[in-house]
């Protein structure tokens, strides 16, 4: 199956991102295609590279980046939600006059159209939220 995944909550506050990650891994192991993972609402907070969670527990952002690299996943962060919450790439930072950017490797910022497109193109869109 061709699957799309939506992550609506930030790391640690809710289990949603962990569960989505486990789901994506399991789906890939079963030979399914993950067309896109779309981060919306606080889900965009999964995409900051400045998180320094305690060493004795998982680093959710790094897990996503590593999984994306290993499988060529398309991790998309909604631009509107990201702007609201201060997740920026270099272009966005420049455009809005901010003195830094924080996006983690493997994530890209784009529009909500990417979510709708994923819904249209895929067999299933699975939402992980609260």
């Amino acid at each position: 199956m061709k699957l799309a995944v939506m992550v609506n909550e930030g790391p640690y506050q809710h289990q949603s991102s962990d569960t989505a990650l486990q789901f994506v891994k399991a789906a890939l192991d079963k030979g399914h295609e993950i067309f896109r993972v779309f981060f919306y609402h606080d889900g965009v907070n999964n995409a900051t590279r400045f998180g320094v969670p305690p060493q004795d527990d998982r680093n959710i952002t790094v897990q996503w980046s590593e999984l994306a690299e290993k499988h060529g996943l398309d991790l998309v962060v909604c631009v509107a939600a990201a702007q609201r919450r201060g997740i920026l790439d270099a272009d966005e930072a420049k455009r809005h006059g901010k003195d830094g950017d924080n996006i983690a490797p493997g994530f890209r910022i784009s529009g909500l159209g990417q979510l709708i497109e994923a819904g249209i193109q895929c067999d299933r869109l699975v939402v992980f939220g609260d």
Partner: protein
Amino acid sequence: MEEGSVKKFMYVNRKAPYGTIYALESLEVVLIGAAFDQDVCLAFLDDGVYQLMDGQDTTGIGMKNFSPIYNVLGDYEINRIYVEKESLEARGLSVDDLQELMYEDEDDDWAEKPSIRVVTAAELSDLMDEQDVVLSF
């Protein structure tokens, strides 16, 4: 899936309008999604029914009152807005407490008709079963 095919999209709203951002941001998805010409409907259940209440005044909380946006959905050809009967009743509400959302039926000489359809949980369950894509906020 052949090119240019149309899918049934349902946007499910379960949260009250201002305590969290889900209501506002889900509306943003609906508006952007409208450009993709899919078969769209909205569902409001649990505390989501509060999103459609008439006479919202947010001056006391310093937040933008975004309830007028629901009125433009008809212009975006979104005219099936399902509201769950049991959720209204559990909150002491009726359809009369909600905004009058209308659309113009192009198949009926542009007659103005109500977009809100009150449905039971069982009916909503059947409707969900018909969808290709269910986005839940």
